[in-house]
């Protein structure tokens, strides 16, 4: 990414500003969605879905993951798998249990 003319950068800047706009809209949406009358599970799903979209925009465009080398993407994919393991396996393990506390 070292030799780009100014025109090319204008394209990039357009993308960044568009993403910024999208993030702003999604933030408003997140807050609005929290006032909807839905079940707890649906609320969690909705909030996490919107957050995931926002995070993907930041990761993909601001952090350039969309054009990043495979090595990095694979490392992150692996990390994400273990992240999910760390997040959900403990709680699934304890859900069979009579009481947690």
């Amino acid at each position: 990414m070292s030799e780009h003319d100014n025109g090319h950068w204008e394209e990039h800047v357009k993308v960044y500003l568009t993403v910024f706009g999208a993030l702003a809209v999604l933030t408003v949406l997140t807050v609005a969605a929290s006032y909807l009358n839905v079940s707890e599970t649906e609320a969690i799903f909705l909030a996490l879905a919107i957050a995931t979209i926002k995070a993907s925009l930041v990761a993909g465009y601001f952090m350039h993951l969309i054009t990043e080398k495979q090595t990095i993407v694979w490392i992150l994919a692996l990390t994400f798998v273990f992240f999910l393991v760390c997040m959900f396996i403990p709680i699934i393990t304890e859900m069979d249990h009579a009481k947690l506390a």
Partner: protein
Amino acid sequence: MSNDSHHEENFIQKYIFSVDHKIIGLQYGITSLIFLFFGFTLMMIMRWQLAYPETVIPFVGHLFGESGILMPEQYNMLGAMHGTIMIFLGVVPLAVGAFGNYIVPLQIGAVDMAFPKLNAASYWSYFVGGVVMLSSFFLPEGAARAGWTSYPPLSIFEAGQTMWLIGMIFLITSSLLGSMNIIVTIVQLRAPGLSWGRLPFFVWAQFVTSFLLVLAFPPLEAAAVLQLMDRVASTSFFLPSGLVYSGATVDVYGSGSPLLWQHLFWFLAHPEVYVLILPAMGIVGEVIANNTRKPLWGYKSLVYATVFLGFMSFIVWAHHMFLTGMGQAMSAFFQTTTMIISIPSVVILTAFFISLWGASIRFTTPMLFALAFLPMFGIGGLTGLPLGVGASDIHLHDTYYVIGHFHYVVAPGTIFALFAGIYYWFPKITGRKMSESLGKLHFWPSLIFMNGIFMPMFIQGLAGVSRRLYDGGQLYAHAQDVLQWNEFMSISAFCLAAAQIPFFINFFLSIFNGEKVDRNPWQATTIEWSAPSPPVPHANFESELEVHRGPYEYSVPGADKDFSPQTEK
């Protein structure tokens, strides 16, 4: 940042805050060896108490109070700190910090690690963590005494735990920075011609180990912060509601979970045991290839097994928690993954055994330790199987059987491999060889007494003797028939200590008086042996290198000698 080696460095820059991976590796090595022997001493005191309960401890009894007899809470302190020190201050810093730092850049033909200053920072963070941990012995509260596993609620209320937690935060930070450095170094700084398929197995082992450290340690760091807050900020992350301590209801919000700690702790601590074994397997691979004068058998299977092992290590942790009341489904899940993870270990061990077939074995001291590793790790691994199966684990959990199992893997397992590494790479580091006779005098008694200490533990464990008992099981009817082993094991421990004396003498004498050797005294093929001994500061090699072949081209048909170095044209 360019590594400017043209200016003269003062003593501090050159030896204290050096950014040269070799100096840092030596710093890790010396510090960790001191911690290892300190941790060993703690164990000897415990073993005295177990063999001769409530008698005055020789030499150091006065440190434990007027009576000179070990008190129960002091026993618990020694136990918790022995485990912590051996794992986090001893073995991992030696295996990864010392061997990883010193050897990996040399074996890939690099001038240094990718981030030399970060490397120095990692060492000093480890050093501070170690000082914090050890200083706890001298504080009024004393050292941690809730086991190296620090289970709440005990760890929230017992004295000495706060320093343990603070120390761990420094140690974990050190580990994270160091392993990140190793990964980038291996990916980015391999010499021209050194493809992934030509990497020595030691480098693959360090690579996977570093991934384990980078991804598994952070949840423990998070948990340590939470436990610290439970101790000092009256939170109740790990404290359930309605807890009564010392007769009074604990005044916290409650609604926390001790199991949360166990999950976060073991999420790291299981991969941690593979951190303990992988570098050791790496060393054994190097020493076997070199002393059999043939390529390692099954290089590809070794690599795939190591990578698979690393991945699986993240999804077995709750086999340490079978007795916490988890449901059948998850118990079955963890039993299955645990059984599966034994497969790559067997693949690796088998490949090493097959490597011996038809070999011209040179029984040098490193080779003796490497050969002994194989059956010792075999015993350790096999004894793990009944622990991985829920039904048998119900009987064996938290008994001496467990202690026997994991010590076989780490003590005559990893530590023997580390000794092999020291004897093997000593000539590269110092330009001199260690004495073979003193080496054998170190090896044979060590092998015998290791077994003397740990084999009877299986007997005691099967009889149901619990671990972490101050009196070694005296009060229990089921233990009476096996108590006599306590004295036997303790005497073996003291003899094992004595067996290390030839090692010490050898180590120090050889630095000054050892047989001077050229740069490749073992006629080895890997890249580190083409550097001078010791390698050039900040540059390692005298000229640019290029790699032309795989790591274990020994006894190539038609070659003029029985080894073809990687960098030779």
